[in-house]
């Protein structure tokens, strides 16, 4: 008798909690069934800002304040260096890539003539930005 009461209680409590969880929890994909194609997010404009974008924290790689969709970074060429290389940045009025020399060092600390292989893919760290609110609220404050 006592055992069956406990079992029933446990069952009721479980049901209540399961019900509450099912109604309250919402995944980031919303009410989208998992087998359906997800809807494309609303398009956002690329941020183009003269003078550059503010960094999130002191040592953050600066974001790209212009479009880069026509640039080529491949085995043959890196067209970012049209404006950001040591020889061209002045006349193009562009910031120099790794002006402290950090981008011209190989892994053994030896100086390289061209941008070092491990820094070659600019957009691994430097990315263009879109004008959009973050998906999740974020209170991060970097050390200024």
């Amino acid at each position, binding site marked *: 008798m006592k055992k069956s009461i406990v079992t029933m209680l446990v069952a009721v409590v479980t049901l209540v909690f399961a019900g509450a969880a099912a109604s309250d929890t919402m995944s980031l994909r919303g009410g989208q069934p998992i087998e359906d194609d997800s809807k494309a997010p609303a398009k956002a404009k690329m941020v183009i800002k003269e003078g550059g974008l503010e960094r999130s924290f002191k040592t953050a790689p600066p974001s790209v304040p*212009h479009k880069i969709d026509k640039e*080529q970074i491949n085995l043959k*060429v890196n*067209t*970012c260096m*049209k404006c950001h*290389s040591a020889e061209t940045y002045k*006349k193009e009025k562009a910031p120099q890539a790794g002006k402290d020399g950090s981008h011209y060092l190989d892994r053994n600390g030896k100086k390289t003539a061209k941008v070092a292989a491990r820094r070659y893919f600019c957009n691994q760290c430097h990315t263009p930005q879109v004008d959009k609110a973050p998906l999740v609220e974020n209170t991060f404050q970097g050390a200024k």
Partner: protein
Amino acid sequence: MKNGTVRLLVIGVILGIILWGGFNTALEVTNTEQFCISCHEMEATVYQELQDTPHYTNRTGVRATCPDCHVPKEWIHKIVRKIKASNEIYHKILGTIDTPEKFEAKRMQLAQNVWKSMKSTDSRECRNCHAFDSMDFDKQEARSVNKHEEMEEAGEAHDASSKEGRTCIDCHKGIAHQLPDGFDPAWNSPGE
């Protein structure tokens, strides 16, 4: 006698129309994208690369095909280009670039040929569509406006020497096809 002259004239006119019309039609057939990419040398390489660029697919749906950039519009220049193209047929027969590897090995030379000819014509084929007069500088990025305004002023003053006779191709290489191995990006940034 008089009758014979008229007859000859009529035959001459009709024959003229047929021959000239036929010549022109044949010329136009060789001036289509379909004709250009009927050779795999063009279809498998430069045509594939073109498809990733704004000259092929873009917001407004205006497309530039091979001859728009590579064949002049004016008759006399067009004929000159068509005669020069016999060299392309010669190398097609020789098989100079009939594999992707051969093409890649020659890409720098081929690209430089095109850059040189575009430079020598003041980028005439670019300007068939892209005229400074039709550019809305308000809709361009600041970094583009500064340079285009400079170039337009230099062009108006007919003072090509002030900007070393610069023209579209001096900054806009590799916009429709991949750049060759060994290309220095600084080549797209002509000096002051």
